[in-house]
């Protein structure tokens, strides 16, 4: 046990992560998501042996005539954080939007190939995209709480607008706001408009709104790019917590962020997957020249 924790700490130090995650990796307080010793830990598995929650196979995505994704095959590890990095326009956002069939919402957009959720291809014609999106939640770049709803109603929006009447809505609201560490800040103003909160609070509210549907996978499309550093730190802290229970895919422009929050990192370039590996490997000894050029800031 001790050696394991030590190796973890070393790995994180080597990656220069865990400024606020260190307390989690001290020997006294092991709270890693995968303390179950029967399973391999994320920092011990190689990318070839991960247990995928989702997997894309030869995924191509198009906007009209232009091909944005050119055959992406990528496994998404279960209950881990996978970061997607790459320069602007490389298809990062399109990729995550394909994972819950939000890509096709844009007029003229379509995708081919397979996207497996557990063992099911979500692009089969008999699969209901609406149901997929309930299992694979999404958090967007700009916080987008519903302006006509109070904080409380925003948390419940996913359930209510799906026609569900939860038995104890107040309990759900409290639980979800606790889960995103927003409860103490808003418990006295639950009736106020969600849009009155600060940007970081709004983003955490949006995460709570997604979590209220109990999704299995959470997609985050540059969730911190509209936030200041302190709010960003709060959201990243939250991601550390959430990866115990959810499979998370996060698109980010910020490589330090990928290094801080992700177990695995995939580097996209011009619509192709260049490299996918453990985050520490990507940032310390990438196999591909283009990855190294990108993370060292030579382009992008």
């Amino acid at each position, binding site marked *: 046990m001790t050696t394991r924790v030590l190796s973890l700490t070393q790995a994180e130090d080597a990656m220069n992560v865990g400024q606020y995650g260190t307390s989690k990796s001290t020997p006294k307080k092991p709270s890693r998501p995968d303390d179950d010793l029967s399973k391999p830990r994320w920092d011990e598995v190689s990318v070839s042996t991960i247990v995928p929650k989702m997997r894309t196979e030869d995924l191509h995505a198009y906007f009209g005539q232009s091909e944005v994704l050119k055959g992406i095959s990528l496994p998404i590890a279960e209950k881990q954080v996978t970061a997607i990095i790459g320069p602007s326009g490389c298809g990062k956002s399109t990729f995550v939007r394909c994972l819950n069939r939000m890509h096709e919402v844009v007029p003229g957009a379509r995708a081919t190939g397979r996207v497996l959720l557990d063992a099911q291809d979500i692009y089969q014609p008999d699969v209901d995209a609406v149901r997929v999106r309930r299992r694979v939640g999404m958090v967007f770049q700009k916080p*987008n709480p519903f302006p006509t709803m109070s904080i409380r109603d925003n948390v419940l929006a996913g359930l209510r*607008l799906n026609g569900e009447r939860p038995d104890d809505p107040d309990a759900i609201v409290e639980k979800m706001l606790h889960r995103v560490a927003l409860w103490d800040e808003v418990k006295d103003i639950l009736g106020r408009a969600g849009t009155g909160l600060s940007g970081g609070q709004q983003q955490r509210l949006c995460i709570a709104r997604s979590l209220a549907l109990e999704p299995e996978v959470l997609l985050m499309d540059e969730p911190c790019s509209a936030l200041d550093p302190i709010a960003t730190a709060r959201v990243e802290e939250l991601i550390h917590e959430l990866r115990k229970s959810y499979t998370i895919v996060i698109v980010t422009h910020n490589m330090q962020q990928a290094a801080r929050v992700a177990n695995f990192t995939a580097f996209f370039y011009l619509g192709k997957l260049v490299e996918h590996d453990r985050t520490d490997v990507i940032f310390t000894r990438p196999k591909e020249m283009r990855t190294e050029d990108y993370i060292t800031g030579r382009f992008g």
Partner: protein
Amino acid sequence: MSSYNRRKFTDVFVRSACVLSALIALVPLGSVLYYVTVRGIGGVNLDFFTELPKPVGEAGGGMANAIVGTLKLVLLACVFGIPPGVLAGVYLAEFGDSRFGKWVRFSADVMSGVPSITIGIFVYSLVVLTTKQFSAFAGGVALAILMLPTVTRTTEELLKLVPESLREAALGLGIPKWRATLRVMLRTAAPGIATGVMLAVARVAGETAPLLFTAFNNRFWSNGFNEPTASLPVNIYTYAVSPYEEWHRQAWAAALVLLLMVLILNISARLLVRSRVGAR
């Protein structure tokens, strides 16, 4: 320094021109309100709201039937006009880029410019001639057609102002598209749409021409929606062109009451919307 003085002068000049123009624009509004109030207030009493019109030559009497008639006509116009108008607006906002959508938008724009009396003739030949009678129903249809283009275009424009990110948020929560449109997009645009609809209703409530040969007029109470029905605008017209001094007085009173009804409609709509939206 001279350029600074020139800039200062231009600033003062343009600003006073704006203030002056704003005042000039307020003059007609203010004088209409003032004049109608002064001339009309004398004729407004309890009888005006509770009595039927008296025959020519007899003093007193009121316009209770016309007040109720106007309310009836406006109600019918709302029932016939708002639901299709709002749904057509939703269609235009969601699928309006198709060839058919462009055609619908164009005809709505053309329709909003059609003189109201033309719509009166249209409804006369369509409804009055088929049912063989003037009726509140026919009047309501005419007013509904009149407000349809305004309601449609207002709904479309306001739906387009709702940020696309809200639709994505809703769809990302696994909410079906139709529900996202109605419960999130339309709901977010609702205050603006309500204001637009109220303006359309207010405009239609004062229409005379389309009612002349659809709802016609009635000196007595009308039962239900299938009889000729009195309305305040038509009464104002009839009374104002009559040679009787007493009727002129009543026409001014009717004008004042109509003005107040429209005002109350507007203000209450705004208050209603505000109290439901400001959840704080």
